[in-house]
């Protein structure tokens, strides 16, 4: 039963008892105390209702704001349009690059296999060079495609960052996936963004300074039996330091 109705019922009961012309002063005192208690409870329930109402209003406003922020993310637009489009652009970049590489390599291979003594050699080479120049035009198109993908990523980044800020979201600790664990164990880092992290010269220094395999090791059929297999080699601190020199 709701609290206001309980209060009304108790009040009615008290009024009825008071009208009964009671003679016992202790009973009258109990009635007075009960009346005060009912008043106190009435104001308590009233303030509690106001607090609950306030909390519910806050939660409703929070939900409405979250919905607004999610709408601003335009999730359907991202899922149905922008992300598939970005994927298609990247697929096209891969294909354009592969096609161009194939054309360029085929031209180079044709030149390499042509006998320079043949009378049409110069014209042949000239034609293949033109093919190579034409194939290089892929770079302009792939550049435009990549820019579109970058724009999409920036669009997503801005909206997700804004959403996280408004929601006050913090990064949660997440367990690495099986694929991530495997990549870490097998050192599958991929190419570095700004060229090789360790330059070829530093690597050469590492392989020149130590190890039986570093210079002039014969192929298996010619290797001396006493030579330790390369797996026995290990890097000294000096080798490692050379990498950072």
């Amino acid at each position: 039963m709701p609290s206001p109705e309980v209060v009304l019922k108790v009040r009615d009961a008290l009024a009825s008892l008071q009208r009964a012309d009671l003679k016992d002063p202790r009973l009258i005192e109990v009635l007075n105390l009960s009346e005060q208690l009912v008043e106190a409870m009435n104001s308590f329930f009233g303030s509690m209702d106001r607090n609950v109402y306030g909390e519910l209003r806050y939660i409703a406003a929070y939900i409405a704001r979250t919905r607004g922020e999610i709408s601003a993310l335009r999730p359907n637009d991202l899922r149905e349009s922008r992300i598939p489009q970005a994927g298609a652009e990247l697929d096209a970049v891969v294909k354009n690059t592969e096609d161009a590489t194939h054309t360029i390599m085929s031209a180079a291979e044709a030149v390499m296999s042509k006998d320079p003594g043949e009378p049409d050699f110069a014209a042949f080479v000239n034609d293949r060079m033109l093919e190579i120049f034409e194939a290089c035009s892929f770079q302009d198109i792939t550049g435009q495609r990549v820019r579109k993908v970058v724009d999409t990523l920036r669009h997503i980044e801005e909206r997700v960052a804004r959403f996280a800020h408004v929601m006050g979201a913090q990064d949660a600790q997440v367990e690495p996936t099986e694929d991530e664990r495997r990549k870490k164990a097998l050192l599958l880092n991929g190419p570095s963004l700004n060229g090789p992290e360790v330059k070829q010269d530093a690597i050469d220094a590492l392989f020149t300074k130590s190890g039986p395999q570093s210079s002039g090791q014969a192929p298996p059929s010619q290797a001396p039996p006493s030579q330790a297999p390369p797996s026995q080699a290990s890097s000294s601190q000096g080798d490692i330091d050379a990498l950072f020199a």
Partner: protein
Amino acid sequence: MAVDMSMNILVVDDYQTMIRIIRNLLKQLGFENVDEAKDGQEALGLLRSGKYNLVISDWNMEPMTGFELLKHVRADDKLKRTPFIMVTAESKTENVIAAKQAGVNNYIVKPFNAQTLKAKLVSVIGDF
């Protein structure tokens, strides 16, 4: 001792263009007997035929990486002396050190040129 230019070389890479590049460079250097595999697993099967004198392998391949292939080769009594050159875009210090500790004979960072490939071949199999 002169290098046997008819030696059998196995090039392992999941990217056909890179195999084509290495094959052409090797051809220019005078090595004609070049076979290919698209990942470590396929390479290991070919290597167990016992005909290969040199492996040139990428690192990042599936299902078996070049690093795993290297460790398999070095753990196999019949294959462990096979010279192994890693040609890869994996250029972090930890990769180079791990490969060296696993017994790689040399390490080339992509992109590379013909001179680099020749220099590493000379350092591993001798001058030619």
